[in-house]
């Protein structure tokens, strides 16, 4: 069972030190926090992987993942990380993820029929990479969701 996803990008014009007067220029709160996406047991997985300098790692897919289905994959990286994803749609997809630190990680996501995921660190410094993934259920099927009580203005009804 999965919670909501939320994205909020807020800009502070000219002042890097404060957020009080900043205006959001990109926000997406499309999914109500009480609408939870359901997935089956064993069809989600995640790990934090330490990539040594010039090191690499093969990411283990969820144990019950059906590769004929779409896998939502999300990667956060504390440094510059190379990710290679093979899938039925694209034989090989290679991207560089740029992050600076845990306080300013790089991010990457995709949603496709994944066969393998390989991470590598082309730099001379080791860092952590966080991988989260789940098999996406049928989003048009209401049985894919659990609907909880809605909250309006902080009051649950």
């Amino acid at each position, binding site marked *: 069972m999965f919670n909501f996803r939320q994205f909020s*990008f*807020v800009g502070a014009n000219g002042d890097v030190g404060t957020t009080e007067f900043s205006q959001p220029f990109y926000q*997406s709160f499309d999914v109500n926090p009480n609408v939870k996406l359901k997935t089956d047991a064993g069809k989600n997985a995640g790990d934090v992987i330490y990539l040594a300098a010039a090191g690499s790692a093969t990411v283990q897919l969820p144990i019950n993942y059906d590769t004929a289905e779409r896998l939502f994959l999300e990667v956060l990286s504390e440094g510059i990380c190379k990710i290679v994803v093979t899938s039925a749609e694209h034989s090989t997809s290679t991207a560089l993820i740029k992050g600076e630190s845990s306080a300013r990680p790089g991010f990457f996501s995709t949603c496709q029929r994944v066969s393998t995921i390989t991470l590598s660190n082309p730099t001379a410094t080791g860092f952590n990479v966080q991988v989260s993934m789940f098999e996406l259920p049928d989003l048009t099927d209401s049985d894919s969701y659990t609907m909880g009580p809605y909250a309006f203005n902080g009051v649950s009804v």
Partner: protein
Amino acid sequence: MIYSLFASPSFRAYQGTPENPNDSSLIADSIGGESIRYNLLYKKNESLPLDDTDSRVLTLPESTFSLTEWSIMVLKVIGKARLTTTGKDYDNTSNISAYMDTYGTSRYPGYVLLSTYNVSAFTVTGQEDGTVVEVFYGVSCADADARYL
């Protein structure tokens, strides 16, 4: 114009399992709050209505943009779409391409998140008639970047 980018993409996809990385105190803790800030030099928002196989090339918002710039991109998709990037590998020589698909509905939109560099071209392609893609993208930089000071 100089912007700061405060990003809190809350990847709260998982609940409770001990091996869950989002329970860890590593990256995930900082993701959930407001503490993550990306310095943003330039930004753009676009909304792209796409039918199947329709393509749009995204042009980053600055004519002096160079290959090595730090590009940040968020796509919200209702329907099916693909982000394709082409550019150079870490060695600045080998060519690489990445394909990031996503799929979503109005109740649960699909997302593509990307923080990258060495990319020379970004292309969004619809994979289903009636797809709507909202794109936010920009150029980020390190704190010490002279253009940001």
